[in-house]
């Protein structure tokens, strides 16, 4: 009797009872169904890996791509792709029951079609603004069978965003240019509106000096002309100093008034939970706490 009970107990623990299929709509408006909560998840890109890990499911991740650096507990997982693209073979070899991708580099292009043909659920996520990061967290929670955790996490992050919004609501919004990269020919990559990074700057109480335009590359001259209140450099201090040490830069208002800041790439260029940390930090740069009190 005891043995039977123990057996039943083990059985109950091993198999979540009545796993219902879950269906969601992804960013490509595809209907994605998982028959039961996925246990082997391949997460392509740091953002998707971080979101799944933030839901407490790092141990269910069975594959990542080569440029994922966080969180530490997933770094030993098998690599299924990198700079040169993504491998259908390697993804299938992990025998995943869910693949999470973002249409960046060639990921969606290379993986959606084969996974669909092989009947492996693959969900495509987009992050065009900060709200979509939160809705992605909720969607991943639903899909992986931990909806409450997803809702809680998203609500916590939303509360922090609300707090920032209140704090910066009445301050004067500085005009900002964020430099995210430099090209060999001297052109700069800058953050544009309509991106989650642009949205992060706005939510932190700044406004984008380049508020139009779809081409991310601009000449340094355009940056000089825009002469923003604040210059952000996504990268380390050393590279930032090297850039603003170049001829012409010292005349900029932001450089003269020492309002040039190096900011964390991982927080502002990976659309995951850490983006909220980045927004809080930006808010402190735009509206220093001492000054607002």
């Amino acid at each position, binding site marked *: 009797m005891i043995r039977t009970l123990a057996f039943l107990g083990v059985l109950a623990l091993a198999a979540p009872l009545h796993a219902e299929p879950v269906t969601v709509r992804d960013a490509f408006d595809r209907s994605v169904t998982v028959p039961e909560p996925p246990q082997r998840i391949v997460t392509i890109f740091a953002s998707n890996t971080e979101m799944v890990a933030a839901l407490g499911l790092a141990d269910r991740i069975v594959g990542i791509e080569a440029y994922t650096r966080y969180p530490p507990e997933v770094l030993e997982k098998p690599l299924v792709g990198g700079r040169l*693209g993504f491998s259908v*073979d390697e993804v299938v070899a992990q025998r995943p029951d869910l693949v999470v991708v973002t249409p960046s580099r060639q990921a969606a292009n290379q993986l959606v079609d084969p996974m669909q043909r092989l009947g492996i659920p693959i969900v495509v996520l987009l992050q065009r603004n900060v709200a979509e990061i939160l809705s992605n967290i909720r969607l991943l929670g639903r899909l992986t069978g931990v909806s409450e955790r997803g809702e809680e996490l998203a609500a916590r992050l939303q509360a922090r965003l609300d707090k920032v919004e209140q704090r910066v609501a009445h301050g004067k919004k500085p005009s900002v240019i964020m430099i995210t990269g430099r090209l060999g020919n001297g052109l700069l990559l800058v953050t544009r509106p309509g991106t989650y990074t642009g949205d992060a700057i706005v939510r932190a109480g700044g406004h984008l000096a380049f508020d139009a335009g779809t081409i991310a590359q601009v000449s340094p001259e355009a940056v000089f002309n825009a002469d923003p209140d604040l210059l952000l450099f996504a990268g380390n201090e050393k590279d930032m100093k090297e850039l603003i040490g170049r001829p012409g830069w010292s005349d900029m208002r932001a450089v003269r008034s020492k309002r040039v800041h190096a900011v964390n790439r991982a927080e502002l260029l990976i659309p995951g939970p850490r983006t909220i940390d980045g927004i809080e930090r930006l808010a402190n740069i735009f509206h220093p706490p001492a000054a607002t009190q």
Partner: protein
Amino acid sequence: MRVWSLLVLALLLSVLIGASAGHDWMSPADLLRALAGDTDVRSRLLIDWRLPRVLAAACVGGLLGLGGTVFQGVFRNPLAEPYLLGSAGGAALGATVALLVPLAAPQSFMLPVLAFAGAWGATMLVIGISRVAGAVDAAGMLLAGVAVAAVLGALRSFLMLALSDETVSLQIVLSWVLGGVQTPTWPILGLLAAISIACLMLTLLLAGRLDVLGLGETMAIAFGLNVNRFIAFAVLAGSVVVAAAVAFGGLVAFVGLASPHIARWLVGPLHRPLLPASALVGAIVVTLADAIARSALPPAEIPLGLVTAVAGGPFFILLLARRLRA
């Protein structure tokens, strides 16, 4: 006869190697199990993903071999290659539009269609321009081809800069331009196979006249061949073949150039045996190159055109050395 059976055997062997090759190598036993209808995901990967791609690679290679032979025959130049008359630039422009512009039809459909239309359209444009300019001979067409290719290349680069952003990556376009066989569904593969056979038939119709043209234009005229008309027709036929290859395989460097040369060593210069031999050589080369592209650098896939170019460059030098010595 022995050459033919060797070629066919080599093709079968390279298809087998291609089917085994990948980041996850499959043994012949795995292959047999998959072919017997095993439903494990690894077997289904083989049947639904890898095998169609390997066979598509063979078809693309065959088409490039045919196209290269026609172009070398028409221009009577060992350096002539299938992408000579603007088809590469046109196909790349069509593919860029398909990959970067959100269109109503699904991308998997628009990509081959627009690549084909671009390749074919660009060649038509080249022939049209050389007609208007009154230079319908080979040299006139080549120059018009260079001009059209320059314009199309600039258009494509502009589209790439203007239309790419965080979600639509330039890498997708770049890797298409560097060549890579799209994995077709089985019905589409059937279509590709049918197209390949039709192209073989079409080019075989040209074989006799290509041989005559090979004697020199004066001689060909003496044999009663309307040279300019035939050149225009052969170029159009050749570019259909190339456009079909491009639609399914992107731009694969060097195969169209090298296959006819290898085939000439094997079966001689007459076009009736040369065309099918060149197609077989092209099919073998692309199937093996695709196997390398898929398996060499896990977890990445090297663009196919890079593999063929790396192998093709030294081949080209060899060719040059042989000619200089001769």
